[in-house]
C-alpha cells in the first residue's frame, strides 16, 4: 500500500471538499468527472497525485486572461468599483489607491456612495491613509455629479487614475442598476473610452448568489474584472470558478484583510491549491 487509491469514496470526498469550498454542485461534479477521466487516461493509481492535477485544472480555468489593470486611458484612466452591499468596495478602493500610488501613479478618489451613512467619511479616511485626494459632495447628492467633478479634478491636477466608489446595491434592484448606467454615461461624456476598468467586488464568503451578481452587474455595468475580498477568513471563494467558467471575467485582485497593504494581485495557482487545503479533504 503506502498510497491511497482513487476509488469511488475518494472522488466522493473530493466532491464534498469542492462543494464546501462553494464551488457549487454543477461545477464540482464537472470537475470530478473530468478528473475521473484524466485518472483513467493517465492510469493514475495514487490519489495524492490527483490533487495537483485538479489544482492545475482549476488554475487553468481561472488563469487564462490577463489580470493586469488597464491603465492606458488618456488623459487618465477611470476605474469604477461596483458590487452588492458590504462586500468591501470602499476598503478595496483605499487599498488600490495605495497600491497604485506606490507604483508612482497620481490617484484621485471619487466619493460616489452618497447614500450610505458615513460612506463619504469612510472613503476620506482611506484617502488620508493612502495619501490621495478625495472628491466629494454632500450626502444624498447625485453620484454621477461626483464622478463628473472627479474627472474635472483629474484633468486639472494631471492625475493618472481616478477610482470611483459607488453605493452597495443588490443586483435585483432595477432602478439602482440604472443609476450605474447613468454614472457610466456621464463619465463617457468626458472621456469616451472610460471607464477603463469596471471592477466588481465579490465577498469570498458569498455562496452561489455570486454567480447572479456577476451576471447582472456584468450586463448593467460591463464588468472587466473581479476583486475577491475577505479571503483571509476560512471561506474559499470557490464560486469564482463557476463565474469564470461561464462569464470569462478575470479575477484581478484578492483582499486578505482590513489593512491598506492587504490587497494582492490574483494568483490562480495559489488560489487553486488553497481550495483543497482543508481538514475535511483528509488525505488528499
Amino acid at each position: 500500500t503506502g498510497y491511497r487509491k482513487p476509488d469511488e469514496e475518494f472522488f466522493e470526498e473530493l466532491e464534498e471538499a469542492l462543494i464546501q469550498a462553494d464551488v457549487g454542485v454543477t461545477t464540482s461534479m464537472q470537475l470530478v468527472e473530468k478528473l475521473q477521466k484524466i485518472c483513467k487516461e493517465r492510469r493514475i493509481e495514487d490519489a495524492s497525485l490527483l490533487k495537483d492535477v485538479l489544482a492545475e485544472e482549476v488554475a487553468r480555468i481561472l488563469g487564462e486572461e490577463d489580470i493586469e489593470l488597464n491603465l492606458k486611458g488618456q488623459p487618465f484612466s477611470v476605474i469604477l468599483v461596483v458590487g452588492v452591499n458590504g462586500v468591501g468596495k470602499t476598503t478595496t478602493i483605499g487599498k488600490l489607491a495605495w497600491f497604485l500610488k506606490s507604483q508612482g501613479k497620481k490617484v484621485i478618489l471619487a466619493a460616489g456612495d452618497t447614500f450610505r451613512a458615513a460612506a463619504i467619511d469612510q472613503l476620506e479616511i482611506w484617502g488620508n491613509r493612502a495619501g490621495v485626494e478625495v472628491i466629494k459632495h454632500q450626502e444624498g447628492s447625485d453620484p454621477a455629479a461626483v464622478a463628473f467633478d472627479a474627472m474635472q479634478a483629474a484633468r486639472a491636477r494631471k492625475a493618472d487614475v481616478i477610482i470611483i466608489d459607488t453605493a452597495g446595491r443588490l443586483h435585483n434592484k432595477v432602478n439602482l442598476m440604472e443609476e450605474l448606467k447613468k454614472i457610466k454615461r456621464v463619465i463617457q461624456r468626458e472621456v469616451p473610452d472610460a471607464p477603463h476598468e469596471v471592477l466588481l467586488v465579490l465577498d469570498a464568503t458569498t455562496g452561489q448568489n455570486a454567480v447572479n451578481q456577476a451576471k447582472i452587474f456584468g450586463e448593467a455595468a460591463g464588468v472587466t474584472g473581479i476583486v475577491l475580498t475577505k479571503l483571509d477568513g476560512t471561506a474559499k471563494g470557490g464560486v469564482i470558478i463557476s463565474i469564470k467558467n461561464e462569464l470569462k471575467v478575470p479575477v484581478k485582485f484578492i483582499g486578505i484583510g482590513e489593512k491598506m497593504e492587504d490587497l494582492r494581485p490574483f494568483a490562480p495557482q495559489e488560489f487553486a491549491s488553497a481550495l483543497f487545503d482543508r481538514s475535511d479533504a483528509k488525505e488528499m
Partner: protein
Amino acid sequence: MAIFENLSERLQAAFKRLRGKGKVTEEDVSEVMREIRVALLEADVSYKVVKDFIKKVKERAVGQEVLASLTPAQQVIKIVHEELIELLGGIQSRLTTAPKPPTVIMLVGLQGAGKTTSAGKLANLLRKQGKKPLLVAADIYRPAAVKQLQVLGEQLQIPVFAMGTSVSAVNIAKGALEYAASHGRDMVIIDTAGRLHINEELMQELQDIKAAIKPHEILLVVDAMTGQTAVEVAETFNAQLGIDGVIMTKLDGDAKGGAALSVRAVTGKPIKFAGMGEKLDALEPFYPDRLASRILGM
C-alpha cells in the same frame, strides 16, 4: 443540470422519467432525493446539513404517503417543505427583556454582514413598541463606524452613545450602561466591529464585553448571501460567545438564503429577524415558511 428553474420542476421531471414503470419504488425515491440534494446545495445549505436532511426526508418519503400517491412529486415537495419549516423553527421575533431595565442587546458578526444598519433598524422597531433605545458605538476599528451609527441615530432621532475610538470596546459598553441608567433608556443596543470567527484577539474582545456587561441578547448578524462557511461561522460564534438568536440580512436580494438552515441547524438558535432593505424600517419578523418556499423556488 441547471435546466430546471426550481425544485418542483426538477422533481416533476424526475417522476416523469419514472412514469410507465408502474409502482414507485424505494430506488425511485433515492433518485428523487438526489435532485433535492442538488437544489439544497445550490441554495447554499451546508453540505453536512443537507446530508442529514436528505436522510430524514427519505425516511418519510419511503413511507406509504409517497409510494402510494398518484402525485408523488407533489407529495415529496410537501414533505420537503414541511421538514424545511420544521428545521427553521417557528416565528420568534421576540427579544428577551430584562426584569430590571435596561435590556442589553449586542450585535455581532462578520465584516459587512449588516450589524450597524441592523442596530439602527432594531432601535427603530423597539421605539415603535414604546421603548426608549440607546445605540452604542463600540466598533473602534472600522473607518467611520462611529460616525455611521451617529448618522443613523440622527436620522432616527435616537441617542447614540460614543466615546471615540481610543477607548476600549469594553469600556464603551460599560459606559453605555451607566449612561442608560442615568438617562432612562430601557433598551441598549451595542454595535460591535465586524470580525472573522477565526480572529482570536477580536473574539476575545467580544467575550470580554459579554463578561463585563452580561447582555440579555447576543444576536449574530448573518448575510443571506453567505455560502458554505456559514456553518463554521455560526458554530464558532455560538461556541465562543453563546448567541441567543440570529438576524438574517439582505433578504431583499435574490439569494436563496440556505445559510439560514445551516445556522439554525448547527446552533439551534432562532432566526429572529429578517433584514429586507437598506432603509431603517426594513426589519421584519423572520417567517420560516417563506424561506422554505424560497429555497424550493416556489
